[in-house]
């Protein structure tokens, strides 16, 4: 049977803020743009970003893009690329204003200027007094940005393929990316989308961990497509965890709970943080609290029938304090556990929040991979932005307020570069039959699987292994066991048949494809974590507790083919200003 074909100038895979900002740029330049999204665009995970977007506007306290740059480099634990960070921080103010003009209702001061709030890691004058740099739109900045960008795209006549699942990139023998094979979820039919240039903007991959804050759509589809196309993933060992998520479900329980006097206990009722951080106790830094919880569970002092979480106690604070100061937390506990924290402690475990690593790109959003000519050779026609990409502005650790900035700045930059690419590449390149066949094989392989394994059970097993063997407690032994276990799951997935082979709205098929993607990206993550023998930013190794700039001030690259690790230098040279050399990171 012939597969349906559609042709566009540009294909954008993913309809979060990064994808839509790029699509807007392209469509306004009168390129024909297709946006493929597996859910309705305004249901992308960008809606969950509450805090705001950083820009050194200086509306509340003095500020300067150069200070923002310093904070971002320091926050990244010096693994961020300083040219990309300079570019982002310089562009920030202009892009906030652009978004305002696109319809984002930023919160305001009485003077009419955009309000800015202070977040952790923000300083004036290179590490001095607190800065106030984050521009919010009430407590739903991501939602406001996503809706504004969607409207702008409708106006510019972007073509949306809603509820289409991207399967694989289509490439020719010269390495050009010619579009993607996608599947209409409603009919189960594959569709070829040919494009002169393609952008991956599919978001992060928090779903590789059992306890995570991400929407269920965050399964790393674009990252896995890149891996299968022979493109490595960069710095995948860096995953931001928050110490207290609701165990097994993932929603954040804010630090405010411990700030108000809440504390953690193990199954013996012991306030164990006193042993790990005698002074700061429950208010020790995030990584210390996260690791203490994981150690307590590993050493058999976990609560609950499976012994897999700690308890966060607030009942001693009294009903009035809880109702007045922690109403949001009480809502979460009441809704998801039908327990009232006024009487009953909350089960918690560290929750995965943000993926710093991803598809390697330069500051134009071009996907770059090592080739004969150097470590950062562009893949012709292919771009990536946002959480699925690694540009790398977050390095080993992302600062609050920088992720919305990242998607808008680099979405726009990628859109602009794609417009230039289209000027130089005016015609579609011929689509080789083998390219189509390669991509179709993936879908076809699921039709013929047989065996006793279950896709859903393997997903649960995978996320549990990642939590235990690649979470906040990392040693050589634990990680090696993780690699072995994930590889075994990869093999077993070949013996997991689709429980339903019908075509129309077969969510089982889409979920199986997602699990396949999760396995590929999980393996990239655990292999990269095993390789990096130091502690830096969010990657904390119990057996290598120090940052090692001599050996490890470099980006890691994991390739699926041969499960190979490779490395490349960090770009320490900014565009115009002096570099910030690595220093010990003290706050």
């Amino acid at each position, binding site marked *: 049977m012939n597969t349906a074909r559609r042709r566009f100038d540009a294909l954008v895979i993913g309809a979060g803020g990064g994808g839509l900002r790029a699509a807007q740029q392209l469509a306004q330049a009168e390129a024909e743009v297709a946006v493929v999204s597996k*859910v309705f665009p305004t*249901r992308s995970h960008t809606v969950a970003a509450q805090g705001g977007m950083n820009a050194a506007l200086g509306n509340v306290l003095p500020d300067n893009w150069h200070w923002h740059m310093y904070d971002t480099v320091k926050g990244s634990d010096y693994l961020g690329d300083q040219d990309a960070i300079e570019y982002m921080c310089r562009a920030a103010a202009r892009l906030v204003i652009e978004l305002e003009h696109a319809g984002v209702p930023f919160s305001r001061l009485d003077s009419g200027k955009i309000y800015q709030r202070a977040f952790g890691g923000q300083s004036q004058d290179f590490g001095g007094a607190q800065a106030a740099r984050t521009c919010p739109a009430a407590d739903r900045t991501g939602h406001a940005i*996503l809706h504004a960008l969607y409207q702008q795209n409708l106006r510019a006549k972007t073509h949306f393929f809603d509820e289409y699942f991207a399967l694989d990139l289509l490439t020719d023998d010269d390495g050009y990316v010619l579009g993607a094979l996608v599947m209409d979820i409603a009919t189960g039919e594959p569709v070829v989308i040919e494009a002169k240039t393609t952008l991956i903007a599919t978001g992060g991959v928090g779903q590789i961990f059992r306890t995570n804050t991400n*929407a*269920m*759509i965050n399964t790393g589809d674009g990252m896995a497509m890149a891996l299968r196309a022979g493109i490595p993933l960069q710095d995948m060992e860096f995953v931001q965890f928050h110490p207290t998520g609701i165990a097994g479900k993932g*929603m954040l329980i804010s630090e405010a709970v411990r700030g108000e006097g809440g504390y953690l206990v193990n199954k013996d009722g012991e306030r164990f943080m006193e042993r790990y951080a005698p002074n700061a106790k429950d208010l020790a830094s995030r990584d210390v609290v996260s690791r203490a919880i994981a150690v307590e569970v590993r050493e058999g002092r976990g609560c609950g029938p499976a012994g897999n979480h700690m308890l966060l106690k607030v009942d001693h604070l009294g009903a009035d304090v809880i109702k007045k100061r922690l109403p949001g937390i009480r809502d979460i506990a009441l809704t*998801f556990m039908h327990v009232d924290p006024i009487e009953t402690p909350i089960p918690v475990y560290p929750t995965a929040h943000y993926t710093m690593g991803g598809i390697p790109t330069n500051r134009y959003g071009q996907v770059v991979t090592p080739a004969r000519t150097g470590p950062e050779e562009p893949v012709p026609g292919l771009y990536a932005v946002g959480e699925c990409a690694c540009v790398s502005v977050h390095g080993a650790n992302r600062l609050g307020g920088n992720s919305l900035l990242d998607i808008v700045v680099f979405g726009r930059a990628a859109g602009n570069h794609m417009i230039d690419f289209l000027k130089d590449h005016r015609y579609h390149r011929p689509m080789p039959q083998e390219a189509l066949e390669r991509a179709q094989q993936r879908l076809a392989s699921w039709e013929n699987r047989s065996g006793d394994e279950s896709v859903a059970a393997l997903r649960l097993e995978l996320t549990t292994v990642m939590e235990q063997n690649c979470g906040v407690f990392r040693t050589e032994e634990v990680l090696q066991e993780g690699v072995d276990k994930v590889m075994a799951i990869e093999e077993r997935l070949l013996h997991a048949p689709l429980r339903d082979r*019908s075509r129309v709205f*077969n969510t089982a098929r889409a979920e199986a494809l997602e699990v396949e993607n999760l396995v590929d990206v999980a393996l990239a993550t655990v292999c990269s974590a095993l390789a990096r023998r130091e502690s830096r930013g969010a990657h904390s190794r119990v057996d290598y507790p120090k940052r090692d700039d001599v050996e490890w001030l470099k980006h890691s690259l994991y390739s699926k083919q041969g499960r190979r690790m490779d490395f490349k230098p960090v770009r320490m040279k900014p565009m115009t200003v002096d570099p910030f050399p690595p220093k010990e990171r003290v706050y």
Partner: protein
Amino acid sequence: MTEPRDPQLERLRWQCRRGMLEVDLLLKRFLDAGFSSLDQAQKSAFADLLEYPDHVLVEWLMGRQRPSDERLAHVVDCIRDASAS
């Protein structure tokens, strides 16, 4: 082996995929645990509910606000009742 399935239910299942984890979990749990006991009018109210944006749904489902439309309010109550596991 193919299990019997209802394409309409599967369509709803995909519409329950949202941008926020909280909404994801509550809707999915309900689809598995409570949806089948709704009558036809309530099922149709559930489908209408899914048309609302995530930031509205999260306020309703977390019990911080209540829909003014009683049909929707009733479905929201059912979802909240089914939410603990």
